[in-house]
């Protein structure tokens, strides 16, 4: 049941056709895992907190550095040198104290992924390193959880919705770690925030059942040229990480 205050707080989004009180209840009971709350994940978390997703679990290690602040909009100047996890929790709680915010001061790894993925409905991958992304992917596929991939670089934004049994996975899209990938990448917060807001809406659509998710499709947006393309992607027949197609282990 929604409280009177919740009906008022979320009223404008409940007006979106297909949402209503039933859709808002689904958001209230949803659990979403976000891997890192940086330039992309921070904005994903901000949007999902504002929308009233009942439980946000966020994995992000380390202490806040000045070089984070151009894009990691959950972080505030006064927290420099302190754990990012503290700042993430405080900013999101200030925005929406009605939801549960579970911030873990760890980055995704093969060791912690089973525990962190275990009880969530959707996972959103916003990590800046391929080993973290692959750890998240492999566990999401193993547990049959939808995985939203939303990486960016400079003015490039990629977005796709992987759903075990219905699509491929990150290993199908990119089977190997590119050796030239570096931890530091060129980024304006306006670009990481753009792909983040689209990824957050993929999660909202999946949870509420409105719209159509980007299954078997990679959206590439180049914000420098403002060219956007929808490109077909598929499961690799020999992918060892994907469950077989038609083996529907997820709930949609």
């Amino acid at each position, binding site marked *: 049941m929604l409280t009177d205050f919740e009906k008022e707080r979320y009223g404008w989004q409940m007006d979106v056709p297909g949402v209503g009180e039933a859709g808002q209840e689904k958001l209230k009971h949803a659990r979403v895992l976000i891997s890192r709350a940086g330039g992309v994940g921070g904005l994903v978390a901000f949007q999902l907190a504002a929308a009233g997703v009942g439980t946000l679990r966020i994995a992000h290690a380390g202490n806040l550095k000045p070089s984070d602040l151009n894009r990691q909009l959950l972080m505030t100047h006064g927290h420099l040198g302190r754990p990012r996890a503290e700042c993430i929790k405080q900013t999101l709680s200030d925005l929406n104290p009605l939801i549960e915010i579970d911030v873990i001061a760890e980055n995704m790894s093969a060791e912690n992924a089973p525990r962190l993925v275990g009880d969530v409905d959707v996972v959103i991958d916003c990590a800046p390193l391929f080993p973290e992304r692959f750890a998240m992917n492999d566990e999401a596929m193993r547990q049959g959880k939808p995985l939203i991939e939303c990486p960016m670089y*400079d003015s490039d934004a990629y977005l796709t919705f992987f759903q075990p049994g219905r699509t491929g996975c990150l290993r199908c*899209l990119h089977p190997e770690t590119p050796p030239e990938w570096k931890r530091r990448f060129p980024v304006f917060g306006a670009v990481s925030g753009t792909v983040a807001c689209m990824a957050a809406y993929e999660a909202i659509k999946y949870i509420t059942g409105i719209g159509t998710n980007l299954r078997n499709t990679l959206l590439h947006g*180049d914000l420098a040229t403002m060219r956007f393309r929808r490109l077909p992607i598929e499961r690799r027949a020999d992918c060892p990480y994907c469950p077989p197609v038609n083996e529907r282990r997820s709930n949609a």
Partner: protein
Amino acid sequence: MPKIILPAALRGRMNNPQDEVEVAGATVGDTLRALTNDHPELNDILFTNDQLHPSLRVFVDDQSPLPDQCLATAVKEGSEIVLLPPIAGG
């Protein structure tokens, strides 16, 4: 001539960045060789041991050729070849 669309992730590696280049060729393989002839700095991202890098995604006229047939895929006047390397900025 066919056209190759270069995302920011590849432009950033080019000595003379361009968001699209026209190249001669009848197949994807021809056009990518023409691209790396003109821009050898892209060779290591596109190819590994003379094969397409397995993590590079190539789309031809908004279709996705099978990886083992990609280089032999025919292209024509006005074809658009989109190259998307793996990125992980988050």
